């Protein structure tokens, strides 16, 4: 899906836990997620902490979307 949307000219950020698979399938902007059963959150945190985590992840993805890349890039950190 990532590749097809990009082929249509729209940049895509792939937020995923197992970034090596994303590399293998050919995504260009990759943002590491939390864990396979809960990629966009962490049920071990309390509500407030989890909200912060989720917001950070979305902001990071948006930042990645604006960033020019030269080939496949994983946005660590």
């Amino acid at each position, binding site marked *: 899906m990532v590749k097809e949307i990009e082929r249509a000219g729209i940049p895509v950020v792939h937020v995923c*836990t*197992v*970034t090596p*698979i994303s590399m*293998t399938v050919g995504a260009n902007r990759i943002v*590491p997620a*939390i*864990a*396979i*059963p809960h990629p966009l959150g962490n049920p071990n945190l309390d509500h407030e902490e989890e909200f912060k985590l989720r917001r950070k992840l979305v902001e990071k993805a948006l930042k990645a979307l604006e960033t020019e890349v030269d080939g496949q890039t994983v946005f660590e950190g």
Partner: protein
Amino acid sequence: MKLELGKIYIKDIKFDDCQRIEDGVLYVSKEELTKIALSDDHLASAEFDIAKPGESVRITPVKDVIEPRVKVEGSGGVFPGWIAKVDTVGSGKTYALKGMAVVTAGPIVGFQEGVIDMTGPGADYTPFSKTINLVMVCKPVEGLKQHAYEKAVRLAGFRVAAAVGELARSLEPDETEVYETCTIKEGLEKYPDLPRVAYVQMLQSQGLLHDTYVYGVDAKQILPTIVSPTEVFDGAIVSGNCVSACDKNPTYVHQNNPVVEELFKQHGKTINFVCHILTNENVFLADKERSSFFTAKICKMLDLDGVIVSEEGFGNPDTDLIMNCKKITAEGIKTVIITDEYAGRDGKSQSLADAHASADAVVTAGNANEVVILPKLDKLIGTLDYINKIAGASETTLREDGTLEVEIQVITGATSEVGFGYLSAR
């Protein structure tokens, strides 16, 4: 370590008040077994039945399959950390009841368990259509959470299997096989010219009905470690997983791991079977990286020449598999991987979720998406309530005439990634 494995062949199972094994016939008492199963107050009921090869019987939802064994000499006991206290197993003498199995069934999650058919095309796919099965269907007490229910059924299965195994303690085995490993130094002195080979076994470790245990420890909490390959014959590894049952290893498969057995057959002849390395398949990327780095490091420190890696499951564990392959190969060690495929119903999709050029020696156990029609069978042990939701089924699985259209994914052991099956392409 040296282990003598005595095999006692079971030709039939009958219910009888007096429990014993006589002339190859196992007599078990429903009352006794129920008492053993229900010694855990999380379970409300346990019902026992017998399913024999060739009978028109379907068992579902299947959780685990276990081979009754008893430790008659040497340290520890069967299922260390669960039934026996934690002590190192894998040496001395163990008896196994061959030709039979204890099967635990009942809807824990319902859609994440497996199917065993004792006849028809489904029976060709599962190795447990060839065993006489003592089936236990457990129901939980009201309000019990799924995790506690899973544990209760898992342990009830081990208690029953251990109690049945105990009936063989004073018997003479029909056949005895001897497995012996050397220490590192002994191996180098004894087989200086043979290639040093180890088995890397990846254990499913992703949560409820996706877990495996090593000496009582949840495998998601281990760092990759080394065991003597004889330890698994005493139940050092046990299963808590069965979702997409085709490629999960029930406890029975750990007790009879074909990769271990085959490597032992070559030990001292074509290879020096150095050890058995255990690693996991966790849900965090950092865990996957850490475990594969540790595995590769252990392989290097043991100066191995070759490694066989078996996966358990599919999807994200394909990444663990490829990481192991890539990192072990990078240490200059020849690597063979064993996996299965999810290549779509037409077999045309990419088989694994991940790939790498170093994976140039791959053994496959088949395409789990392959569709089969299973006939309506006369008797059902368990329930068909979840059959349309089970992984590998669809809402049209149960057809009007009572037949089932399913992917072989639903069948316990159909694409075993340690090769525990009877189908091959040869």
